């Protein structure tokens, strides 16, 4: 039927076919992690050219480090730290001015539940130090002096504080903003499918191989268990909770999300997850809704366009916006 050389050629074709079939498909996933902005940042990127993906992820991490150097209060030379030390009007970059304006708008929209000026409050609690403490009422009142949505006057690149002692703190928006910048860098590099997770602040670019990304939400009281799973495309998800950054004194848990009205940790929620078009907005709104508590927080999220949310009240009750789609874990 076949001559000998034809058998050998046929055999080689079969082997080549099997090797081709075993080879990875056209699109690959690259996963990279880095420690930036005091948290673990995980980047998942899909594409066909691994070298290009490597370059894109390296550029994305570099962008996040740039944002860290610009906006974090634990870097003494960041613009935000220098603004906090300034006694009079201070000139910031256009980028910082734009983010401060966005933050101020969100502060107004949330009735001050989100606040850009809680730096002093964070310091008196020492919440991120190795010796956190419960401040006195007098210390709390001093830390709350002059804070609020109108505490900063922003005119172009010039920022004036209502009080020289006012400390600007972008912890409730900067990480989300950095996630947005990472996605923008990836988009510019031609990536169409990616996800970035910066310690729970998640940004999604496109879908995952034609399917929605499946974003799990941590149960606030059962370590290792999931509350729900959200199928999402091109969205940002941020969760604020009382269960990771906290300390205990005399059986009371003191966490890191402060109510600007009292200066103490907000007590209405165990966790709040917000889904929005961008991570900076989701970040700020998750903090605000947590501060407002489940009922008021839910009303806030319901009235904002392109925003959904899932709130766990202090007794474990679950509240969600009408448009949120979720699945059982």
């Amino acid at each position, binding site marked *: *039927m076949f001559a000998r050389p034809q058998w050998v050629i046929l055999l080689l074709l079969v082997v080549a076919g099997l090797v081709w079939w075993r080879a990875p498909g056209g699109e690959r996933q690259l996963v990279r992690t880095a420690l930036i902005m005091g948290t673990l940042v995980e980047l*998942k990127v899909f594409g066909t050219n691994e070298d290009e993906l490597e370059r894109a992820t390296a550029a994305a991490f570099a962008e996040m480090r740039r944002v860290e150097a610009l906006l974090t209060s634990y870097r003494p030379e960041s613009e935000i730290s220098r603004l906090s030390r300034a006694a009079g009007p201070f000139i910031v970059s256009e980028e910082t001015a734009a983010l401060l304006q966005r933050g101020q708008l969100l502060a107004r929209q949330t009735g001050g539940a989100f606040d850009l000026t809680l730096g002093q409050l964070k310091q008196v609690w020492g919440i991120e130090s190795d010796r956190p403490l419960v401040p006195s009422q007098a210390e709390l009142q001093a830390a709350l002096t002059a804070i609020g949505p109108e505490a900063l006057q922003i005119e172009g690149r010039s920022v004036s504080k209502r009080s020289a002692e006012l400390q600007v703190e972008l912890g409730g928006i900067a990480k989300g903003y950095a996630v947005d910048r990472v996605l923008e860098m990836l988009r510019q590099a031609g990536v169409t499918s990616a996800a970035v997770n910066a310690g729970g602040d998640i940004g999604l670019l496109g879908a995952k191989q034609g399917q929605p990304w499946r974003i799990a939400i941590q149960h606030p009281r059962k370590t290792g268990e999931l509350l729900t799973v959200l199928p999402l495309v091109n969205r940002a998800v941020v969760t604020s909770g009382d269960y990771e950054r906290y300390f205990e004194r005399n059986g009371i848990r003191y966490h890191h999300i402060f109510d600007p009205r009292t200066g103490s940790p907000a007590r209405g929620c165990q966790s709040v997850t917000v889904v929005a078009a961008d991570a900076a907005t989701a970040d700020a709104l998750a903090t605000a809704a947590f501060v407002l508590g489940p009922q008021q927080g839910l009303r806030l999220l319901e009235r904002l366009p392109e925003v959904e949310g899932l709130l766990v009240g202090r007794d474990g009750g679950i509240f969600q916006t009408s448009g949120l789609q979720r699945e059982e874990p």
Partner: protein
Amino acid sequence: MKRIWLQRLTAFDRKLVLLLSALVFLSFLVPLRQEAGARLLVESGDKTLFVASLDQPQLVELSGPLGLTRFEIKDGAVRVLSSPCPNKICIGLGAARHSGDLLACVPNRLVFRIAGKSAEGQGYDLLSR
């Protein structure tokens, strides 16, 4: 009929067929072996400091810039037991057991990653917490 085409194969052809068949068969086995169990990788910066199977219980101490972080592999999962970091968030994160799960002690610059195939599927792409 079969006999005719078999007769056309020389001894070398038969060896070649056997060799290639064995290679194809092995190519299926190798990745399967790699994914048989989940592995823990502990990384610091660009370096992988520690690799172990999650099937083998053990207590391990690794050094970071702040000092020793102590962790445990038990029941197919890894959890941080003690750490010199100020807020102990890494301890509060609990256990990691599924492929893709991550834990980190940020101040001590240690990242714990589960790789390979775990017994249960993770069922999600990213975790928001």
